[in-house]
């Protein structure tokens, strides 16, 4: 194993191959506070990429309700249970990653889901953390909580799927860091299915090969955001390229959210893959739960999000989510308006931070009608 640097852990770690970062890294921020679990993203992906034979059960994008939801079943709990002692000292991870705790003879600490584990994609849907006692639901805010966690492949900097494949059939594109299974080379050993802690590689029984999220690379290559981003009803998603922590560009929306404001955090950083989908944690869930999912920065990220109304640059950037189909490389706020532009500086979109409010009287004498309020 080689020694590589994982900035999410604040330290070096062991990995199967030497460090080799792409020229730029495709990355995303998901705002969990805005997801409504409409599953439009899931279907956008399904109809685009996985409508073929053998792909029936596959959800390259899925949305699960936390704390009880998971797909495949208990993908997260199983590994958290296997991976002992995930302690942090400040921002430095002191526990072991799945590479460092690989048992003898294995490349990573992994496990194979059973076939039935894929049978309950909606398990735990809308179930909240605790029993709601009689009458409790009438009180606001609710005492109990749940939230929606939308998941795609993380196009990890240190992919476990790639490390697990004994024949090098998985590769990370040097131009954008997208992780792909070479469908001409894969022999269907399913080592990647076993190795990926997020269980985002799926075996196709009809082709006999493993398949996974491709980050809609034909769209990315044209500067367009993937299907699950542009179809998102809640406008929770923003795709872009994330710089290394020592090369941060403050006008890059992803750099600003991840590196500067530290409001968007990786999912299960302790696994050690340096995943590249970043989450704004749900502000109504307990900080301890968020820390287990998103690492030690969860508390500060929740505070920063709560304070967004007093932080015009942050608030303006949050307004850019879901505002354009194109990938926004730079953002700039002028007064109450935020503009997004592409990597050549051409303006793509301009969004007001506040929509005008129109008040229409309940009774309209001109048209002689009474308006009814619809919630």
């Amino acid at each position, binding site marked *: 194993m080689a020694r590589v640097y994982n900035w999410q852990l604040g330290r070096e770690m062991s990995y199967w191959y030497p460090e080799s970062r792409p020229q730029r890294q495709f990355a995303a921020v998901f705002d969990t506070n805005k997801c409504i679990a409409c599953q439009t993203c899931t279907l956008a992906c399904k109809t685009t990429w996985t409508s073929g034979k053998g*792909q*029936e059960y596959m959800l390259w994008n899925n949305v699960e309700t936390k704390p009880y939801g998971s797909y495949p079943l208990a993908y997260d709990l199983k590994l958290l249970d296997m991976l002992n002692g995930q302690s942090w000292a400040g921002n430095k991870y002191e526990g072991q990653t799945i590479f460092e705790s690989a048992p003898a003879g294995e*490349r990573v600490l992994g496990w194979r889901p059973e076939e039935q584990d894929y049978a309950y994609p909606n398990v735990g849907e809308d179930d909240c953390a605790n029993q709601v006692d009689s009458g409790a639901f009438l009180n606001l805010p609710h005492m109990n909580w749940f939230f929606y966690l939308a998941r795609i492949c993380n196009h990890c900097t240190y992919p476990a799927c790639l490390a697990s494949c004994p024949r090098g059939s998985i590769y990370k594109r040097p131009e954008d860091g997208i992780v792909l299974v070479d469908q001409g080379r*894969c022999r269907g050993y*399913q080592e990647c299915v076993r190795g990926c802690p997020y269980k985002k590689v799926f075996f196709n*029984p009809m*082709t*006999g090969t493993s398949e996974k999220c491709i980050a809609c690379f034909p769209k990315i290559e044209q500067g367009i955001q993937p299907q699950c981003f542009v179809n998102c009803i809640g406008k929770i998603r923003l795709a872009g390229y994330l710089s290394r922590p020592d090369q941060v560009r403050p006008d890059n929306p992803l750099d600003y959210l991840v590196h500067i404001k530290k409001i968007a955090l990786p999912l299960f950083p302790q696994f050690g893959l340096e995943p590249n989908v970043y989450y704004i944690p749900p502000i109504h869930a307990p900080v301890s739960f968020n820390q287990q999912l998103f690492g030690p920065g969860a508390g500060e990220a929740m505070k920063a999000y709560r304070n967004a109304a007093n932080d015009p640059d942050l608030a303006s950037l949050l307004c850019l989510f879901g505002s354009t189909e194109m990938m926004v490389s730079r953002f700039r706020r002028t007064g109450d308006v935020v503009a997004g532009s592409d990597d050549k500086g051409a303006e793509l979109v301009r969004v007001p931070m506040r929509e005008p409010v129109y008040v229409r009287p309940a009774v309209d004498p001109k048209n002689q009608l009474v308006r009814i309020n619809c919630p």
Partner: protein
Amino acid sequence: MRYAGVTLMILLSAACSKGPKQVAEVVAMERAGLPANPTDAAWEEAPEHLAKLVPQDQVEPRVLTPTTGEVRVRALTNGNEVAFRLEWVDDSKSDKPGPTKMIDACAIQIPARIEKDLPEPQMGQEGKPVQVTYWRADWQSTIDGRGDTIRDLYPNASIDHYPHEAKPLAPGSDAQKEMALRYSPARALGNMRGGPRSVPVEDLVANGPGTLAPGPSLGAKGKGAHQKGGWSVVISRKIPEGLAPNQKTHIAFAVWQGSQRESGARKMRTGWITLSRRSGS
């Protein structure tokens, strides 16, 4: 003394009539016609080699706990082709692909060239390629008539809609087939790990672990049957170059048990075993 000698002879002949003739190497007996079927009586003409299997423990992922103990091998040749029958104990037939399901399989491996310094027994090495002929149980089931739909694997599956089978695409038309390939990238690339096929085996070549790739055609054929708690599989291919009468080369075997979650590097294997060619007389 005389009595003891007679007793020994009687014991020996009794042993011979009970089991097959065992040999310390794999001997390909010459014969005019090669049997395609593992149950063909012609296999009785060949002596049996009992090959001990050891876990693949050279490269990760490794097998740490042995599974299949041995494979019984017989070989016949007509001078152009050589056929092997591999038999091993496996009471659970694993021939259906699925998520996290592994499939029963076996393979033979022969150095691409006869030379004094043998390639590494495990998948060969750089500059010293090995030829691998690989048989898989799900391919056998396809050959034996299993259909190419998800219901052939999951009889209770219910499917609402496949875009590549929707109107106005006429079933079986070129346009429909072309559309189906768009949803089957591996098939579109000719990587036929699943789907229709004409033989349950494939010709491969390797230059070391992790390098296995389709090789030049050696006309591989095969047929396997699961019976009496085990597999009996015939694999045949072109005779190794230079394996003239009474000449020798080497061979290695590998067995995968799906029920033991074996596939790829997770396998039981042998080292090099001498493979010789001998006339029947």
